[in-house]
């Protein structure tokens, strides 16, 4: 059985989950505009899907990355006969990455990460005050 959750494990796991989310968005951004020789080979954006882990003993709920989902979006076909990766029709397949959506995703992840840090530091300060009480 897993150890009961405390405030700090909740915070740590939430921050790692946000980091996974940010990494996924960064991978997508890095692959924006990359092309492949066929539709199957083209890069598809990934997304972290979060799930709650509830601990009945302490009444706390933390978050874990339930899985990484690959988007089903179709690759964008572009006619470019001069491209070295072009198929017999002269087409290349571009990764369907929406840069704006990825930027928003990253912004949201970093905001939530920061929120978590702030909440943790407040909680830590209160705990320290309680411990120092004589």
């Amino acid at each position, binding site marked *: 059985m897993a150890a009961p959750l405390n405030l700090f494990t909740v915070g740590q796991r*939430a921050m790692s989950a946000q980091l996974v989310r940010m990494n996924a968005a960064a991978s997508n951004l890095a692959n924006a505009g990359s092309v492949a020789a066929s539709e199957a080979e083209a890069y598809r954006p990934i997304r972290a899907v*979060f799930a709650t882990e509830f601990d009945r003993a302490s009444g706390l*709920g933390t978050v874990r990355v339930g899985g990484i989902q690959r988007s089903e979006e179709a690759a964008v076909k572009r006619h470019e006969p001069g491209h070295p990766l072009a198929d017999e029709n002269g087409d290349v397949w571009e990764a369907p990455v929406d840069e704006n959506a990825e930027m928003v995703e990253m912004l949201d992840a970093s905001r939530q990460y920061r*929120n978590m840090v702030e909440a943790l530091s407040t*909680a830590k300060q*209160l705990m320290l005050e309680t411990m120092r*009480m004589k």
Partner: protein
Amino acid sequence: MSAGLFGIHGRALEIRSQRIGVLTSNIANAATPGYKARDIDFAAALSARLSGQDSDAAMNGATRFRVPIMASLDGNTVDMATEQGAFAENAVAYSATLGFVASRVESLTRALRGE
């Protein structure tokens, strides 16, 4: 925490401390699909605790799901502004309660020393 020594403040501090955890859980799950934000109704928990319930029962009985201001598409009911406000309010109240407990300890030590 001894009820006789700290009176209402000891119990209040317990509930405030648990509420920090519940609100932190909400903030942690701000991006989890289908997560339902919870909060402890402080007044209800405190009066249940003062009427003699043990701390787990009092806090479980007073834990409520938050009514979202606006429903989101993925079923998550965490509203960051609400959570941050509640967290700040709770932290200040925790500090205040801690102050009361500390001054109680101080007056007791003074009494023990016979100053």
